[in-house]
């Protein structure tokens, strides 16, 4: 269904991810665990073309960029994971001619139905975030499924029913939950850290939120410091003064 679902019913969720740019170290755990989960999960297969050749190209659902911001002393580098934001009003759903691209009413997850997608690629053109990649071998579009095949899966332990990328992330930079519930952990996290949307002016209303890098504490006053004054008395060398102080303390 390419018209957007009715989201006014009680009990509906807005599931999504919160990505902490202050904690991501660019280790690629999320990108690769997503790739390996989806080579056998909902999105299987995720083809790799010429994987050992001069120009390997595979379908991935999560990509980790690196950017630098700021100038001089305030310059900082950061690592930036990019995947589908499961927007509330995504054009990728409405432009789809077959209805293969749809947004689930109960939890807001945006999916591609691999049985009905014709591979016209229009949805990837409509996505500002590059969330959809075309699988050249499979002939259909692939995208983050928010691990819909994990989060409710009774074959997994309850504590493992979360997206593969969230479970894998070693620094804990990825969080999963209901962003439509203001009392959920993820909503509180977004509130506390000032989570933001990507390209809000385009009005796709992304559900995933990004947490900004915290200000650096690398100047005087950033963290508490003890004023360091030379101990001891006398005109001797520093060592002599320190020794005189030690004597005093130990006596």
């Amino acid at each position, binding site marked *: *269904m*390419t*018209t957007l679902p009715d989201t006014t019913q009680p009990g509906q969720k807005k599931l999504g991810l919160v990505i902490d*740019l202050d904690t991501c170290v*660019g280790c690629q755990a999320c990108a690769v665990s997503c790739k390996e989960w989806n080579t056998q999960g909902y999105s299987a297969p995720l083809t790799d073309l010429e994987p050992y050749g001069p*120009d390997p*190209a*595979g*379908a*991935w659902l999560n*990509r980790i*960029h*690196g*950017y*630098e*911001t*700021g*100038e001089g002393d305030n310059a900082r*580098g*950061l*690592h*930036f994971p*990019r995947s589908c934001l499961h927007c509330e009003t995504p*054009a990728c*759903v*409405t*432009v*789809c*001619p*077959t*209805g*293969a691209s749809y947004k689930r009413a109960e939890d807001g997850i945006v999916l591609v139905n691999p049985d*009905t*997608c*014709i*591979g*016209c*690629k*229009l949805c*990837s*053109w*409509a*996505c*500002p*975030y*590059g969330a959809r*990649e*075309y*699988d*050249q071998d*499979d*002939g*259909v579009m692939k995208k983050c499924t928010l691990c819909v095949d994990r989060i409710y899966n009774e074959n997994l332990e309850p504590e493992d029913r979360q997206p593969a990328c969230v479970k894998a992330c070693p620094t804990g930079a990825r969080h999963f939950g209901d962003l439509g519930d203001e009392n959920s952990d993820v909503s509180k996290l977004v509130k506390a850290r000032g989570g*933001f*949307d*990507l*390209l809000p*002016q*385009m009005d796709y209303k992304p559900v995933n939120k990004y947490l*900004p890098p915290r200000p650096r504490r690398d100047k005087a006053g950033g963290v508490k410091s003890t004023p360091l004054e030379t101990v001891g008395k006398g005109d001797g060398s520093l060592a002599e003064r320190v020794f005189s102080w030690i004597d005093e303390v130990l006596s």
Partner: protein
Amino acid sequence: MHPAYSVILFTTASGAGYGLLALLGLTGASHGSASDFWFGAVSMLVALGLITVGLLSSTFHLGHPERAWRAFSQWRSSWLSREGVLAVATYVPACLFGLLWVLPDSNETLLAVLGVMTAILAMVTVVCTAMIYASLETIRAWRHWMVVPVYVIFSIATGAVLLFALTSVFGRSGIPALGVITIVALVLAGIAKLVYWASIDNMKPIYTMGDATGLGGDVRQWELPHTSENYIQSEMGFRVARKHARKLRMIVAACLVAALVLVWAAFGFQGDAAPVFAVLAVLLVSIGAVVERWLFFAQAKHVVSLFYGEQSV
């Protein structure tokens, strides 16, 4: 955006086909039956042939052409779906019109109604095609009020040149109305394109890397997520150098002007040379249309390129 040859072929061929079809429909509506059976049949076949070749080309470009029938279902929200529905729908009055038009003693009223319906549906289909691009917020060069008019005018212009050539080949190159329409259409196409290019060249960027990443301020590309090109880069990251683009634009303009001159010449001379000039005009306007469409893709920047190092869009 990556100019996919099948899409270019589709939009230019079927654009020309729909333009020709619309003009044929209007001709039938205003002038009654075709003046000559073969002229009518060939013209209809050319029109429907171009449309069909275009549609088939874009269908076989799909990942799953065998599922293409599903594309008729989402006309409520999707311009691509609407285009599909209308493209197929247009065949109905078009074929009926074509039959009535070439056969003698057809009911003039019915012919006129079918002719107008065909013309309308053909143009609406072209509008839908254009809207597929014009409705995308992610590509500013396409989300431009001129995109639809340009598609329509190019469709009419290429269709008109085709019709002019067909009439010429069949010995009737002197139809004033047709000559005027063709020349005017070519001029309008040229002007529209120039205005469009000037407009996108002067478009002020409104999205920056800072917006895309949410980090604000000056953001610089540092590490690419992958060292070999991926689908997003090859599909949306296509770049054409300004100098190269300028040359191609001049080719488009030159083709339109040359086509116009040839049509004028054919119209003026009306001798044995006329069909040759007219067919040459078809060739040139086709080249112009293909290059124009190629540039339409190549010079369109997608917002996602902000993630891949484009400073602003």
